[in-house]
């Protein structure tokens, strides 16, 4: 029997918490079964909205889950030891985000039983094929990175052979960190490329550098900017709920600083990209950018919100050493960063479909169905459950472990 | 002690390996395919013998639109078998159960492709001059009709996958999967799009 770590919440507290999320998860599972057994008519997607809330969710969690590969890269390759405290949580979060995204993707496609065709008959030109390959391989990497964590569970580590295995794994973790970084780099980019390559969608289409559209690079940059912020948020949230100091201040500070500078770089490049898009890319395709923001539901306000309010503002806050000392700022600013990235993914996914390309087609709005929201909730609860279990049974936070031992 | 332990482990490993391979090579194929008898016995040899003197395309011919008519309708059988020729069980069954009530014989087709495949026989036999035997084997020289082996799961005939369960066929009759079509097309320098063979 696997025992929880010594200083975790008692079962009478843990059970209702996990029970609540299990209930939501069950609801999500029911919605999943509906979609898989009867078809996607249970969603509110239609021929104009081939990508709905799920794709938005996938893109967002994958961007936020970028904390995993980026922290591993910083820690193991660039030897930024400040991240030692968060690497465990980062790996778990990454695993949750990626595995959740893969599962939702499987529900989202009409014929999941044939999804393996992508590996067997791939179209090398397709960004989605690239995404699928990298995503699957990186999920494998994450799983391998997750295993040592599991094996560190006290009851499991009693088993000598497993402990040896764990030690072996640990030696090659640098290799995995490197491989993971490359894979992630590509699939984050490909997710951006997904939109940027659509030469038939002037709203999404972007100028290319070599074979990659600008969104390829913007997505990478925004993901590695948002990942650390998301790590801050989740760790703070976990601290709040468990009422324990899980991560040292230096780690938060480092994450905040790196998030801020990367975000600043992103906002700068995004602004350049937007200006080029408005003045060159879109008009060259026959569309004036003003048409894109004609409707109130996707007005210019959304552009302002994405770049300034949820981009420039938190970036400037996070690069300020004094402001980062403020605990409230260290919650609000990362939150703004995460929302900003979510808005970016939302706009790319939904606004580009709302806008008709045919001049005589109408502007269409999309609201997700209850089933779609149910699956969304299921994915969220899956994350909470896995993270809670990992926190309860695995030494995610080495800092905390030390304290408990002393 | 350690040596013994390793040896038992290797033993278990080999047991697992062998059992799984036996299952994968023998048990699964046996379980996956069901064997269905043809409704009636039929000898191609008798029909193409000098006595009967029939040619292949007396029964298996092309239609006016160029399509392959496939297995003949009962009307073709009636031409000779209006009354029973001989006293074999199958002969009587043919006359009593099918010819007299005018019912079609529900023959099972070994080479039936799924609905989504378009295979123009005429292009292959007339333009590419590929002999029937290349795909169908020596079916025309058989004395009896073997049972149809049908995949319980997909409903496909075993002939599509080929007799070799590994899926590798090197000599005729070739299996008739898409990859087999593609291989042959490549060999002959025919490069086509998906729609050339899919409908």
């Amino acid at each position, binding site marked *: 029997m696997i025992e929880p770590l010594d200083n975790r919440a008692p079962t009478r507290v843990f059970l209702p918490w996990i029970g609540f999320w299990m209930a939501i998860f069950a609801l999500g599972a029911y919605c999943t079964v509906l979609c898989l057994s009867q078809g996607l008519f249970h969603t509110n997607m239609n021929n104009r909205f081939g990508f709905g809330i799920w794709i938005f969710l996938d893109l967002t969690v994958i961007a936020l889950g970028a904390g995993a590969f980026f922290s591993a890269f910083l820690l193991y390759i660039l030897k930024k030891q400040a991240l030692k405290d968060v690497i465990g949580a980062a790996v778990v979060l990454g695993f949750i985000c990626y595995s959740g995204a893969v599962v939702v993707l499987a529900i989202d496609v009409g*014929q999941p*039983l*044939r999804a*393996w*065709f992508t590996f067997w008959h791939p179209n090398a030109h397709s960004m989605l094929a690239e995404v699928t390959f990298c995503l699957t391989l990186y999920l494998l990497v994450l799983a391998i990175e997750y295993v040592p964590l599991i094996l560190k569970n006290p009851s499991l580590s009693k*088993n*000598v*052979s497993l402990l040896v295995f764990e030690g072996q794994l640990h030696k090659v973790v640098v290799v995995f960190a490197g491989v993971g970084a490359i894979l992630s780099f590509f699939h984050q980019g490909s997710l951006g490329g997904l939109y940027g390559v659509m030469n038939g969608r002037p709203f999404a289409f972007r100028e290319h550098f070599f074979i990659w559209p600008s969104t390829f690079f913007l997505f990478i940059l925004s993901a590695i900017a948002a990942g650390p912020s998301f790590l801050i948020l989740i760790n703070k949230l976990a601290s709040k709920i468990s009422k324990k100091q899980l991560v040292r201040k230096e780690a938060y500070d480092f994450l905040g600083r790196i998030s801020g500078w990367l975000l600043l770089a992103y906002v700068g490049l995004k602004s350049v990209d937007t200006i080029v898009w408005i003045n060159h890319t879109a008009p060259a395709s026959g569309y004036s950018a003003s048409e894109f923001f004609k409707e109130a539901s996707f007005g210019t306000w959304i552009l302002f919100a994405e770049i300034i309010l949820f981009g420039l503002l938190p970036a400037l806050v996070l690069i300020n050493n004094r402001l980062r000392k403020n605990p409230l700022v260290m919650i609000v600013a990362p939150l703004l960063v995460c929302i900003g990235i979510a808005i970016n993914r939302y706009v790319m996914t939904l606004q580009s479909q709302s806008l008709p390309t045919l001049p005589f087609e109408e502007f269409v709005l999309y609201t997700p169905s209850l089933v779609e929201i149910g699956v969304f909730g299921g994915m969220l609860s899956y994350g909470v459950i896995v993270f809670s279990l990992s926190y309860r049974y695995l030494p995610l936070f080495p800092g905390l472990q030390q304290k408990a031992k002393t | 002690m350690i040596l013994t*332990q390793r040896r*038992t*482990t*290797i*033993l*278990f*490993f*080999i*047991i*697992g*390996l*062998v*059992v*799984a*391979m036996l*299952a*994968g*090579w023998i048990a*699964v*194929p046996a379980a*996956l395919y069901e064997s269905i008898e043809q409704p009636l016995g039929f000898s191609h040899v008798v029909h193409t013998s000098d006595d009967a003197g029939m040619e292949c395309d007396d029964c298996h011919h092309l*239609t006016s*639109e160029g*399509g392959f*008519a*496939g297995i003949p309708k009962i009307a073709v059988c009636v031409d000779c078998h209006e009354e029973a020729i001989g006293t074999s069980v199958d002969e009587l069954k043919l006359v009593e159960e099918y010819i007299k009530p005018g019912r079609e014989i529900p023959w099972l087709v070994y080479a039936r492709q*799924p*609905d*989504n495949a378009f295979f123009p026989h005429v292009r292959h036999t007339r333009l590419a001059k590929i002999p029937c035997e290349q795909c169908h084997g020596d079916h025309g020289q058989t004395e009896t009709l073997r049972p149809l082996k049908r*995949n319980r*799961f*997909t*409903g*496909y005939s075993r002939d599509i*996958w080929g007799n070799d*369960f*590994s*899926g590798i066929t090197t000599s005729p009759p070739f299996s008739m999967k898409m990859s087999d079509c593609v291989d042959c097309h490549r060999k002959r320098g025919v490069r086509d799009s998906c729609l050339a063979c899919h409908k």
Partner: protein
Amino acid sequence: MGFSVKRRDFLGLVGGGAIGAALSPAPWKGLDDIAIWTQNWSWKPRLPRGPVEVAFTHCGLCPAGCGLKVRSVGGNPVSIHGVPGHPSSTGFVCALGLAGRYFSYHPSRIVEPTIVGTSGQRRGISRKAAVRQLGDWLDKARSGGGHGSVAILDNHPGRVRSLAYRGWLATLDGVHIKGLREDTPINRLRTMLDGPAPELGLDIARARTVLSFGAPVLEGLGSGGAGAHLRGRSDTEKPYIVQIETRPSRTARGADLWLRIAPGTETVLALGLANILVSEGLYDKEIIAQQALDLDGPGGYRELVARFSPKQVSRITGIDAATIKKVARRFASGPAVVIPGVDPGGGPLSAEAQTAAFSLSLLNGDVGRPGGVVARRAIPQEGQLADTVELADVPDGSIRLLIVDGAAGGCAMPTSLLKRKLNPSEGRVVSLSPFERSALHGADLVIPSTTPFENIDEAGVPIDAPVDSMGLTVPSMRAPDYSVDSLSVLSMVAKSSVVPTITELLRGRSDRIHAGGRGSVFDPSKGESVPLTEFQTNGDLWRALMGGGLWTDTSAAFTCPPFRLMGANAAIRDRLPQALEQPSTADRQAREIVLMPFGWRDAPGDGPLPPVMAKLFRETRLRLDSRFATICPKTAGELGFAQGDKASIKTSLGSITVEVVLDPAVVDGVVHVAVGPSTEAFGDASPGKGDQPLDLPSCKNDDCWRVIPAKMLEVVS
């Protein structure tokens, strides 16, 4: 330590198993088979297999009778195509015709006779019991009433089947009622001729001008695709089409001139045009002088039309005087065809509007000249036939037993109109129909009949055919056992008389045509016609017809007999001047609107539609069905409605709920609602499914229900 060893061994077993499995084809084959299963799972329909057979026939869905090439597999038609070069349809098939084969498997098909019990519930009975019941009612009707107590409503009159009906009815002193069709108005012209008149047709193809009062000229009126070919014709001699309609119909859009007329003012416009023809002396003076019986004198036509000055007419119709003059002069410049149209859903024009319209043809000397109204030579008929009348002319409450032939007529009729003709206490309706929708309108007994692709019949002679013709609807699929031909039903109940079978009747007509020796026969497989004289025996002709051939007659000269420009009917004559008493278009009261039902040419009122027609109604809104009301933004604004609002349209008989669709091209003060089955419930005949605007009008005039006073109210949810 023992625990540890076991675990290792187990891991070894699992590892070996995994490697062994991976080295066998089973898992890969499994993966493959799972994918293949998704491509062929059992609930995906299997394609029909077998050799394709090609046959030719004619379409029996509407009077156009288009030539069809039918490709079948195993006795089921798998595709339908037009026949290029066909004399009347020239390769055209409409959407309904293409999909018509789906009628046989229509979800609303009736599979057993049903009767309304004493409790009002409909229940199934055996065919034997149904026939016995019909026999009882027949005896009762005959003993209780006199002439016309037994009647047959024939939605497809003019076939040999209709002659059999009339022959049977003659033995019962019954009447044959012609269902509403697009060629109904031409009978009005026949009543205006003094003396016996032959069958008449319109020579649209050679006309210089077509003056259409709301007829679907470009939407498939007459012989299949004729209207379409008018549009497609690039020669300068193609007719100039003037469409007089309230609605931006496809014909109105495509016409050379669209006169958007105020609702119900067609009589005024027609007499206004006559006013200009007469006052400017543009009419055919020679013919009028010789043949017109009522031009001059007190109460004469000249006096009548003098009152319809362009100014007056413009005030009432909403069409400016200059345009009216322009149209009149164009009309008089050559042979012209006037079509006082029957809208498939909106019904016919009033009798006086038809009379006024046809008076223009007579004034222009178009009756009997190419490009105008032409006569068809008749094939001799045999035997005693009962009268054939229009429903409007049947006295109220006179019918005790009405048998409805469920053939598709192409036009819808208000239920209330039919009901009024029945004897209030003893009137029974027996419907011989394949479908629930068309049968359920008040039928006491329903006996399922065949669909048009299952039975042999005569294809119609379209309104615009200048000559007579005969083509057969050769069955392209087997009729199910529960269905029965209408003549077989009659023969089962007939006691004293012998009802011939439909094949005998058709063969008889074929033989008479052969005996006549005129005309030519089109061979659809070759795409060419040969003279009838090349057919040695009557059997040769019959075989050609059964092979989908079409016999067409030769045309014959026809001299217009004397005629009355105002018709022979005194009541109609008296109503003509009253047309001027209508209020001007400017006087319309706010909140008062008129409902004008209309029908799509290939999706008419009563019958069901094949589900594939959902492409036009449900999956796109290329066409709107009865769930939508089209209204101009100005009127909608006055009434407080915006695009997409729900509204209740209320008349004295009831209300329907619709969604408002704004269209600036619609005339002010009118709301247009399509008539037809609800396309959200293809095939479903349960109450509330397919609300019919045609159930709303209170028919003041039996013959016209196209303008219905109504109110448009907000729907309180």
